[in-house]
């Protein structure tokens, strides 16, 4: 069955075109989206606004990101412009290891992150300093103390069709997929705000910060509560259950039937 590690290690081997273009359009439109709407989370917090962080971020950016995204975030053929994507986007993309990209593929893949938390924040500070965009989420929305019932309902309506009701992920078109949700509350929050890659944007007018908090609360509840029925078989639903019934259930019973009908020695 599937598991997160497998998904993390998957090698992108699909259509070689498009990643660049996809990312470019994605990040551009996120930035553009942000420019269009007022609101959003509190613009960059004080600690990531310090000049020291920004300088540190600039150094890291020039060394690791500028080859694709340009020295001044203007973008290039191999990477989109990052002007106006905001700190949230940088924290999500770098903090989940999606950036820097390992290789071209239908979509950027989650993998072990390449930068420390401190470095990620510095990068975010630098990118945010060059254009306004969604900032890092306010910690009070990440505490998992919201209304899980509201969260579960919103999750089913807005998220489950791609990510599966249990957050186990699912397929999208042309080899893309919605990943299993095993990210930190901050990254989940950021993903909703920025709409990374093909994920739609869920701005604060669509799902208010409290709604987002409720969704995170529900996901945290699921993560922390044991499955009442036992091992969940990847939360993949009837397909996994059917295979299990055939191979384990019927398999075991056939093995017993062979023993039962074999001649005793």
């Amino acid at each position, binding site marked *: 069955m599937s598991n997160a590690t497998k998904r993390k290690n998957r090698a992108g081997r699909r259509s070689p075109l498009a990643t660049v273009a996809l990312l470019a359009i994605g990040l551009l439109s996120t930035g553009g989206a942000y420019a269009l709407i007022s609101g959003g989370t509190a613009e960059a917090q004080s600690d990531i606004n310090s000049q020291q962080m920004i300088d540190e971020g600039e150094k890291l950016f020039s060394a690791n990101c500028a080859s694709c995204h340009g020295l001044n975030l203007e973008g290039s053929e191999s990477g989109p412009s990052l002007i106006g994507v905001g700190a949230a986007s940088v924290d999500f993309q770098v903090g989940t290891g999606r950036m820097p990209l390992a290789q071209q593929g239908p979509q950027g893949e989650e993998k072990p992150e390449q930068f420390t938390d401190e470095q990620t924040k510095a990068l975010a500070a630098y990118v945010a300093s060059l254009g306004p965009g969604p900032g890092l989420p306010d910690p009070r929305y990440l505490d998992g103390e919201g209304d899980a019932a509201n969260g579960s309902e919103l999750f089913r309506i807005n998220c489950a069709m791609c990510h599966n009701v249990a957050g186990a992920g699912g397929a999208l078109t042309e080899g893309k997929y919605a990943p299993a949700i095993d990210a930190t509350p901050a990254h989940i929050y950021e993903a909703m705000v920025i709409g990374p890659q093909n994920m*739609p944007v869920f701005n604060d007018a669509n799902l208010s910060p409290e709604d987002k908090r409720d969704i995170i609360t529900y996901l945290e509840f699921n993560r922390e509560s044991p499955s009442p029925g036992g091992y969940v078989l990847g939360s993949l639903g009837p397909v996994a259950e059917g295979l299990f019934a055939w191979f384990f259930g019927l398999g075991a019973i056939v093995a017993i039937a062979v023993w039962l009908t074999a001649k005793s020695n």
Partner: protein
Amino acid sequence: MADDHGARDVVSAGQSARSVAVPVSASQETSVSPGLGVIAPDRFENPGIPPHQPRVTDLDPKKEKRAERTVYTLFYLSLAGSVFAIAAYFGFPIEENNIASTRMNNLMIGIGISLALLAIGIAAVHWGKALMPEEEMIDHRHPVIGSPATRARAVEIFDQANKESGLGRRSLLRNSLIGALVAFPLPAIVLFRDLYPGNQEDPVSALSHTMWKEGVRLTRDPSGTPIRASEVTLGSAFHVIPEGLDESEHYLEEKAKAAVLLMRLRPDELNEIEERKSWSYDGIVAYSKICTHVGCPVALYEQITHHLLCPCHQSQFDVTNHCEVIFGPAARPLPQLPIAVDDEGYLIAQSDFTEPVGPSFWERASVNDN
């Protein structure tokens, strides 16, 4: 069932091993046609049952003792399992609002019952295999067809019944009986007509309209709050229900037709046909969420490719081209809801959908014509 010989014919294989070596008895082969079957005259003959090999438990009393011990130990183990299951029922109660307690309850009772069942089962089978006689015995078969005498008697009974009742002779009686028997279940079928009560709306008409009409605001699912055009940013997808759905008498039925997905694209990304140019608002488009294939919610929106995907059967729709089908079993584009903005900046419907939403139905083509 009426196999009178069954029990008598059972013989221990050992006693008569050679006597069954007689091959296929001639009776069947001469009386019944084998069709295309080929029976070689010099075929091998059945060598009969091989000599019986005794088991270790037949030869070694110690082994037999041990098998016996295994069996009764398992029976006691099963007993312990049952007791454990009962104890677990009380010992691991379900506490309110505590999932972990539900899990423990499930697990512990389950372990007890599993043990109880598996131990009985394995013990009984082991008993049968190791201690009960396992030498094969023979049961003779008889052709399934009734014996000639039985068949003759059956025919005779039918003939007699026929004569006595006159069923074959009195054709009017017979035919009227058949007529009556054919007719009598019909009322029962008619009675099922009101599974969908007759005083309700005609199905075709019910399927042809939704709650949307001119001026109805687009509201968020499930809160029912109206949506301003300015709130729908590029790349956003809103799951939408009509305003007032909450008060609807048939909430789920109306929602099953009226659910809409609202998306904003850059206006230049939309390839709109002339007559539908006024149906969108500044790149904001609204499409029915109900798949035109068999009705699953088509809600998987990819904001870069602008593809909509149905998770049930993988139909794909291209939002930039009026949701035309680009992959999968669906045949028709998703119906578009014409939208506009009211004085307060809220999104409203210009009208109902201009065609029936959801899966195709037989009369659908005639609805389109109207």
